[in-house]
């Protein structure tokens, strides 16, 4: 197999964020929705980890769980989220809150709703530094530096403006400036480029990449856009219907996808299709309902390669490369055949 990948070796120290066997339900009038099932994921320090998946895959739920921003109907059934060695789920609420906007910060899909519309950028950017020492004018200076860094032209005069006075792309830049102002250890980015035009998406991805290198933080980058993930991330987790079906270094995932879903997803991306064709590849079927308990592999109803075992048994993680894992029985069968 391929072990000659140029990916930097994982540091032996503990990952910054370790999600272990996370199970999360939403209570709804129709019953319990198992939104996350046995999710395990590491975010090593200083790396960008992408979560890709389609709508309903649970990728945003996972991001919100890390931030502790879930609605009341959410119920964590099992698992742990270790951040810098401490379990966020067992932490008392005030301690967890004090991590937000300090060690952990977030940027959202819609930059308009993420900013307070009736306050100036200046006051919001000064407020967010409430964990930091220093006078108001020092904080303002830091805010100005950061706005300049994220590419807001003429920050001196723009800092007094209100969010609606910025365009969509500029607003997302302001959000990034606010999130990184506190020099977090982990930035959670939930679809930050989805609402933007393609040429602006390129700008934001490049900006995030540069800033990440500069500050040295980790990023948990949630997106449905494979191109953005391929460009920004070091590691990728592919989610389907509440499960992480494959995880590995970005090159492993994009060059040697092991799970049938990952393969199908990559095939569907229209950017891949070079020849003019009237029939584009699709993944037939619908995302399965997450109500009630499920036996077997969650992807089996849409999988072209499903066989008997997939109906009965939920696949465990099979290791393919040094740190490339996927949940698919085919991998086990292959191993049995070769052995």
């Amino acid at each position, binding site marked *: 197999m391929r072990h000659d990948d140029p990916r930097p070796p994982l540091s032996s120290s503990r990952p910054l964020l370790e999600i272990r066997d996370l199970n999360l339900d939403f209570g709804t009038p129709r019953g319990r929705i198992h939104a996350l099932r046995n999710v395990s994921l590491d975010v090593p320090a200083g790396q960008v980890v992408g979560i890709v998946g389609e709508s309903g895959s649970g990728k945003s739920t996972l991001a919100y769980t890390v931030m502790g921003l879930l609605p009341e109907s959410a119920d964590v059934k099992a698992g742990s989220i270790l951040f810098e060695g401490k379990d966020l789920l067992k932490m008392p609420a005030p301690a967890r809150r004090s991590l937000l906007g300090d060690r952990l910060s977030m940027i959202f899909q819609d930059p308009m709703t993420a900013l307070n519309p009736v306050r100036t950028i200046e006051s919001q950017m000064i407020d967010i530094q409430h964990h930091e020492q220093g006078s108001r004018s020092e904080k303002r200076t830091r805010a100005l530096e950061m706005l300049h860094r994220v590419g807001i032209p003429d920050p001196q005069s723009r800092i007094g403006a209100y969010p609606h006075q910025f365009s969509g792309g500029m607003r997302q830049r302001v959000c990034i400036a606010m999130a990184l102002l506190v020099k977090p250890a982990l930035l959670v980015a939930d679809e930050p480029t989805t609402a933007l035009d393609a040429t602006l998406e390129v700008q934001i991805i490049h900006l995030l990449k540069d800033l990440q290198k500069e500050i040295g933080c980790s990023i948990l980058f949630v997106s449905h856009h494979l191109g953005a993930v391929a460009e920004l991330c070091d590691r990728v987790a592919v989610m389907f219907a509440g499960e992480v079906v494959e995880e590995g270094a970005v090159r492993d995932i994009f060059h040697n996808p092991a799970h049938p879903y990952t393969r199908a997803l990559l095939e569907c991306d229209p950017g891949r*299709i070079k020849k003019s064709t009237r029939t584009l590849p699709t993944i037939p079927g619908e995302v399965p309902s997450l109500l009630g308990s499920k036996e077997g592999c969650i992807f089996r109803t849409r999988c072209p390669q499903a066989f008997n075992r997939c109906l009965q048994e939920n696949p465990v993680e099979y290791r393919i490369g040094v740190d490339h894992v996927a949940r698919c029985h085919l991998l086990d069968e292959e191993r049995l055949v070769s052995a």
Partner: protein
Amino acid sequence: MSALLRVEDLRVRFRTMGPLKALATGTKAPFIDAVCGVSFEIRKGETLALVGESGSGKSTIARTIIGLQRAVSGSISFDGQEIEELSGAERKPYLRRMAMMFQDPIGSLSPRLTVRSLLTEPFRIHGLKRRDAGGEAERLLRMVGLPADFARRYPHQLSGGQARRVGIGRALALNPDLIIADEPTAGLDVSVQGEVLNLLARIQDELGMAILIITHNLNVVRHMTDRMAIMYLGRFIEVGSTERIFEHPRHPYTEALLAANPEPDPDAVLNRIELKGEVPSPMSRPSGCEFHTRCRYSQDICSRVFPEPTASREDAHHSFKCHFPLERETAMPIEQRRLSVAGPTLK
């Protein structure tokens, strides 16, 4: 060949403030020009794409064709008949022959109607009351590949892809000559996008209607359309056959757009072209070539002189507005360009 739809020198403007306020603030032109002087035609059975980013005016053109928006000047003719001036009842017979699909798959379905009534709404609007509604709904559902029992569902019980299929079914109800599809894949997952585009292509093959696709996503355009027009700030900046433009874009903006939707490959995406800044406000249009503020090839003349449309030497139907159009040497076809920077392939 006769044009099904012909748009000539279309101009659409929006008011930015009321006449009183304009007078009080001394604003001479309280308007923004959303569409300024656009001409194109669609032949029977042809597919044309209008491509541009938000604010380029592409959706405004669609809304003007269908009559939701008034033009300031210019003409829109359908099957040889001028329709821009028509209103209400006069326009209705033409609306029967074209159908528009809007961006939001679920939001464009009236929330309190069942799929069955949604699909048969066009019949009722056009007074075709005696049709067998149940049978028609069933026929349309079959056409768009949904099970017959979906007729009883409500829009909120549909997924985005299913809702989009219902929208396509409704557009097909009266067997139109032209379908206008505004961002047909917006808000859909990649796996579902393919389904929707395949469905549109299949239906076009079967029924032979013309399609006008409005999108920002060039990947949608490539497999669906015969010709495309790229818009920037309410103007066409490049027009030509889809194949030709993908192979050899001449305008730097087109080049950047093509590069912005790359193949998802960690080793090949290094060449996404980053444009400077953002689309300027249509209230303060740049002088000369309106793209010069973001263009990496911009020179002195670009900020002074508005570039006139130039036809390509190789293809008279391929035209563009640029002082320094990309030549083959500088603008490689997009795949080649990516191969040249691709890292070691692992296999």
